[in-house]
């Protein structure tokens, strides 16, 4: 038996191609939305993996450093180094802000690191790691910064000495790594007017500016102008130790919060991007319903245009399943064209998204099955209409 659906599609391929193109763009948007979600999850995992840490030690009762603010004294890491099972520990700071290169502003996450310690970017695609204690930076390539570029962060200019990739915050902002001291200053340093104002307040306060204790006011003012705080301490576990065990020790003895990699993944994926994920899920459902409605309408309209032929087919003895099969195959054919177009356009336009879009083969396979199921369901209305066609309508009278 010849394929009636195949012949019909070939006969009016232009109509099918354009319809499939339109449907494909819709499917492309759907796949891209799934890709955006996967990209967010992958960004989170990359953020954790690239930090090189086994444990994140943060302020107690917080979900820091990514999901909530966290502040620790910058000497906490020394105490951690003395605990059994801790091989390395290093301070880090995180601050999302605008970095300026020339006339261009880029939203970045500035990460303060100790060179050579956990938290340093693990892979460079160009240049070198930070070697000086001040005013050098390693930037994620997606910032658009070039090697040797001068980037202004707060009041200082930094020279980009290295480029890395896939180092972005949970919200997709590219990272710029600078020395810890500079980062602390950038994060906590007040502006000049505020410092002058604070000095005046201290001097005007008789409790702080005591004639009997010379130098007290100046010492107080200086202490307020610098910061000894960091957001987290990244810990690497010694070989043979379990992360959970060391984390429990830190919680118990240091009165700090310590998260393992799975716990941090849970925080990033289930908490930090949960709302975005739900938003995308709702949008995907809406797109699925819209796609189903469009396919249903298209197939129904195409079937209405063939009622006379369907009546003739029934009159000359075509079985109901032959006619239903023709309509179903056309719907599935449309879905196939739409999926191929959608997958192609989603792949082509993915690099142009400002955030990472991860198109997983598994999602594509699931999307293909969903498209086919939607098309099959969408064809039922047209099939029902076709099967109700009276073959007598092919005969006059």
């Amino acid at each position: 038996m010849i394929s009636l659906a195949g012949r019909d599609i070939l006969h009016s391929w232009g109509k099918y191609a354009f319809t499939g193109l339109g449907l494909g763009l819709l499917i492309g948007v759907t796949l891209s939305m799934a890709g955006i979600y996967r990209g967010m999850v992958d960004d989170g995992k990359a953020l954790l993996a690239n930090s090189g840490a086994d444990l994140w030690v943060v302020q107690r009762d917080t979900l820091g450093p990514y999901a909530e603010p966290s502040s620790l004294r910058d000497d906490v890491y020394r105490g951690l180094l003395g605990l059994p099972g801790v091989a390395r520990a290093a301070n880090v700071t995180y601050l999302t802000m605008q970095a300026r290169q020339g006339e261009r502003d880029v939203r970045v996450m500035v990460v303060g690191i100790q060179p050579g310690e956990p938290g340093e970017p693990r892979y460079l695609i160009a240049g070198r790691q930070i070697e000086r204690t001040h005013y050098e930076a390693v930037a994620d390539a997606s910032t658009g910064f070039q090697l040797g570029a001068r980037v202004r962060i707060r009041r200082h200019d930094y020279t980009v000495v290295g480029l890395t990739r896939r180092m972005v915050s949970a919200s997709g902002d590219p990272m710029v790594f600078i020395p810890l001291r500079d980062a602390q200053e950038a994060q906590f340093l007040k502006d000049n007017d505020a410092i002058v104002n604070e000095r005046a307040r201290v001097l005007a306060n008789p409790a702080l500016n005591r004639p009997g204790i010379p130098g007290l006011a100046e010492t107080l003012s200086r202490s307020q102008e610098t910061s000894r705080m960091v957001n987290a301490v990244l810990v690497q576990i010694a070989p043979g130790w379990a992360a959970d065990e060391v984390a429990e020790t830190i919680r118990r003895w240091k009165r700090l919060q310590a998260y393992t990699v799975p716990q941090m993944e849970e925080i990033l994926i289930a908490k930090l991007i949960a709302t975005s994920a739900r938003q995308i899920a709702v949008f995907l459902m809406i797109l699925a319903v819209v796609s189903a409605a469009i396919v249903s309408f298209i197939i129904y309209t195409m079937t209405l245009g063939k009622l006379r032929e369907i009546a003739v087919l029934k009159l000359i003895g075509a079985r109901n399943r032959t006619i239903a099969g023709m309509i179903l195959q056309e719907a599935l054919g449309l879905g196939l064209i739409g999926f191929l177009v959608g997958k192609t356009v989603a792949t082509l336009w993915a690099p142009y998204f400002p955030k990472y879009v991860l198109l997983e083969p598994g999602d594509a396979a699931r999307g293909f099955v969903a498209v086919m199921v939607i098309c099959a369901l969408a064809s039922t209305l047209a099939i029902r209409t076709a099967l109700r066609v009276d073959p007598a309508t092919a005969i006059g009278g």
Partner: protein
Amino acid sequence: MSAALPNQATTTPAIEVSGLRKRYGAGDTAVDALKGVDLTVQPGEVIGLIGPSGSGKSTLLKCLGAVTEPTAGRIALSGETVYDGGWRNLDPRALRRDRIGFVFQAPYLIPFLDVTDNVALPLLLAGRSNRGARQRARELLAALDVEHRAQAAVAQLSGGEQQRVAIARALANQPPIILADEPTAPLDSERALAVVRILNRMAQQYQTAIIVVTHDEKIIPTFKRLYHIRDGRTYEEAGEGREFG
């Protein structure tokens, strides 16, 4: 009611209809479209079925074509009773597919199939192989002088060619009977007569009985036998059987 004419062939009729009735609706609103139709057509014979609008022509055609179930009566095809108050355990769809051919006022070819596949379609629906069906289609197209258009799309054919392809399709399964519903209506005199000539030739060649429902004054004189249908009843008369052209 019909009356048998002298010299009518004595072979088994291709179609034999007796006391066929069709009632639409029920109760006070019931309409008797057919009130006891009798009709006999021999193999290889082409008869005309004429009558005014609303006389029951289309209803009779639908009943004979197993599209509409009659209310009462008997229909026999090639001596086998297929309807006798019911379809005798026969599937009307299979009956249409295997034993009845249809030619319509407009050709109603399937536009997305080429000429050969249009003719082969009834055979394919009946389960014949692609190769066998196409071979048979080509034979029929040759018999109808449209073999040169075998690979053409339907839209590329003239009206006359399309009607010939439609006749070939009707003949594909070698049905004992073809029902032609005003097959010459959209054609001019020359082409209309050409179609009737083809129908006669095919009826002779394949020993198929053909019932032509028509209003067309141009072709009515060409039938040797005519059935008039009025108020749901048939009246048989001898036609002029005028030679073509």
